[in-house]
């Protein structure tokens, strides 16, 4: 069964360090999303890609966060420097494409980030 892959699953870092997360969407899915989820809350969209293009990054803290999807397949989310408040679960999701009849999003296992 096709799945969204993410790595690492867990990351512990000290504040001011750089961290990077990787996501490989379901094959053929053109739309990719990065979410942040704080314990006890719903997912918060950080960035949305359609193929290699950023569609929406209005909620991405651009002074420290960056995201890319250079070849329109896998994607990397980076935080530099990490802050204590960045501790959260980072989720990657993919869906077929913008304009599809169904925008069902499929989620990867997530990366649990702890900033000390």
């Amino acid at each position: 069964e096709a799945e969204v892959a993410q790595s690492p699953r867990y990351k512990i870092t000290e504040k001011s360090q750089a961290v990077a997360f990787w996501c490989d969407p379901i094959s053929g899915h053109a739309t990719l999303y990065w979410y942040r989820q704080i314990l006890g809350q719903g997912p918060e969209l950080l960035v949305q890609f359609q193929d290699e293009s950023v569609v929406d990054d209005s909620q991405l803290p651009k002074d420290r966060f960056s995201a890319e999807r250079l070849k329109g397949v896998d994607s990397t989310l980076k935080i530099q420097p990490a802050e204590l408040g960045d501790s959260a679960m980072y989720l990657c999701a993919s869906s077929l494409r913008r304009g599809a009849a169904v925008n069902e999003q499929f989620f990867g296992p997530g990366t649990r980030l702890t900033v000390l």
Partner: protein
Amino acid sequence: ELKVEQNPLFLSMQEEKNYTIYCNYSTTSDRLYWYRQDPGKSLESLFVLLSNGAVKQEGRLMASLDTKARLSTLHITAAVHDLSATYFCAVDMDSNYQLIWGAGTKLIIKP
């Protein structure tokens, strides 16, 4: 601003009981999704509701959508412990192909 409100936010119930989780939203949409999240895990798609009057059932869970009332319900029949999880509804924004998420309902089912 589109708002998605779930209630209750927390529900503790006994096994074998029935209950309903409600998801209200504030703008026109005819596509709504339900997801399940186990503690420390990712989100799993449960139901895709694509039109007014849509009803989907899987085991002890049944979801429905009333687009005129802007309301979706997730009904649990004869609850069992394995259904303990947090349940999220998400409304599809046609304009930008994003989902607007409810805050989630944490469901605890006690033996």
